[in-house]
């Protein structure tokens, strides 16, 4: 049995090792810093591989999606725990969890055929308006093609809502009933109780939920690949195309014939791995810092 449990550690060790080993050719060639800051990814002509476009793409899409998702996720958590009559609360909670059960490819499929056309309409409208009234905005907007960073951000935001919502829900539920009652007894409305006592008390758990959602967003592959446009340039516009670390691997891996190309892709994977570990550890530390009075949310 110890052997089996050791399998966990073995799996992790293999993960770290093989990612590093596989990427070592590229890393040795460009150096870790050079690799991360190199802006040119060119498997065709120059055989130069800099991962910065994908690092920027990953961070940009993930943080934007996170920002979009926090309020709706909190709203779901609050609705289920504080505002909804019991039968409705359970239903909403179940539906929110269902959001997490839909596979990434299905979101991608829906993204391509339903979301992107709608986004394209919206982008066109905004683009035309900006061309007329705010032309300084145009370079930040980019070509209103539908496929691009904005669509990826939207799909990501939809996908990560249930993670924050679920963890926040648990954290809010764990706030002791006396904390609420004491505030009600002072003459507070329900929203005042939530704002003054519940949310501050549960903030550790809520933060954990947010970080969890971030971790998911960073690694999300299929849906992003299908709607982001997959270019090698650093994304500088909202509507224009981009790529993330995960999406470039999915896109190019099976086509890569050159050893250096392959190794570079694995190196990108290694960087993603480091990023995921860093975010995870940061979450654990933050959780310990923010939990009040010994409450582990």
């Amino acid at each position, binding site marked *: 049995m110890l052997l089996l449990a050791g399998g966990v550690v073995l799996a992790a060790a293999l993960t770290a090792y093989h990612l590093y080993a596989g990427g070592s050719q590229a890393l040795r060639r460009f150096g870790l810093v050079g690799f991360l800051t190199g802006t040119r990814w060119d498997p065709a002509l120059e055989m130069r591989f800099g991962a910065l476009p994908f690092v920027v793409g990953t961070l940009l899409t993930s943080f934007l999606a996170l920002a979009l998702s926090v309020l709706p996720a909190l709203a779901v958590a609050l609705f289920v725990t504080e505002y909804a*009559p*019991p039968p409705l609360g359970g239903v909403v909670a179940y539906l929110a969890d269902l959001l997490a059960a839909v596979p990434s490819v299905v979101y991608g499929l829906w993204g391509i055929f339903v979301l992107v056309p709608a986004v394209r309409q919206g982008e066109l409208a905004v683009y035309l308006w900006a061309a007329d009234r705010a032309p300084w905005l145009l370079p930040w907007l980019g070509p209103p093609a539908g496929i691009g960073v904005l669509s990826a951000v939207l799909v990501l935001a939809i996908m990560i809502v249930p993670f924050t919502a679920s963890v926040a829900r648990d954290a809010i539920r764990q706030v*002791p009933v*006396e*904390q609420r*009652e*004491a*505030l*009600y*007894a*002072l*003459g*507070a*409305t329900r929203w*005042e109780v939530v704002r*003054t*006592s519940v949310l*501050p*008390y549960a*903030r550790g758990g809520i933060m954990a939920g947010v970080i969890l959602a971030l971790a998911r967003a960073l690694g999300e592959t299929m849906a992003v690949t299908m709607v982001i446009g997959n270019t090698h340039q650093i994304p500088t516009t909202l509507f224009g195309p981009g790529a993330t670390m995960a999406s470039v691997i999915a896109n190019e891996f099976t086509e890569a014939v050159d050893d250096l190309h392959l190794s570079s892709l694995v190196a990108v994977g290694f960087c993603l791995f480091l990023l995921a570990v860093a975010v995870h550890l940061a979450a654990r530390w933050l959780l310990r810092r923010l939990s*009040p*009075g010994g409450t582990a949310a």
Partner: protein
Amino acid sequence: MAIPAKAALEAESAAVLVEQAFGAEAADTAAPTLAMEARNVSVYYGQRRALTDVSLGIPARRVTALIGPSGCGKTTFLRVLNRMHDLTRTARVEGTVLLNGEDIYGPRVDPIAIRRRVGMVFQKPVVFPTMNIFDNVAVGLRLAGERRRVVLHEAVERALRQAALWDEVKDRLTAPGLALSGGQQQRLAIARALAVSPEVLLMDEPTSAIDPVGTQRIEDLIAELKHSVTIVIVTHNMQQAARVSDYVGFFLMGELVEFDETERLFSNPRDPRTEAYITGRFG
């Protein structure tokens, strides 16, 4: 204590000001009026009836204790007095409860306004862990919309003095609330309730989670407080009831069995059930 010059204490009645100027005894002359009066109050949780047809008057500026075995309805009755049952979906309250003459369950009455006039302290001392001591006491005032720092400072100091906690915390008002001991935390909770100058203070087994020394201090505090606030205290400790209260109500199985002056009820109970309880034959 000098009369505060500021209008910060505008919420307090003139009688209290008189008292502070001329001493507590001066206000305590004739038979006390009723701060609150319950008439035919029943409480249902869904189909189950938890309280049956309770009528009693809470004398002003006195301590009224509610005693009885577990599950007898004393806490249920206490929560009727500040409309806490509104928060429970399945609970239904029937009857009339008068606060200074007006029915708090009347059709256009705002429960939030009621809860500012009838405060509550709970069994477990409640400290808001993300706030410091000052904010913990001031939170009720802030919720009521008070923003002026001078007013808040004066009210917090007054409340902490009334709760006999000022001297212990005056140098560390910005320390986290959780830094206090159990007994101190409960007095903090009392200060918080007092900061909004309620007319009545409800206490639900306030010392059952506190050590004996802390309990003593809180009981002393109650004896002081009653000169400015009407107090209703639920306790399962008969000796405590005998020590601190002026009037006692004995509850059993959702009914008010007997209500009388403390001395009389404990030395000469009228109802045999009361006698059985206070002589320890059950409960």
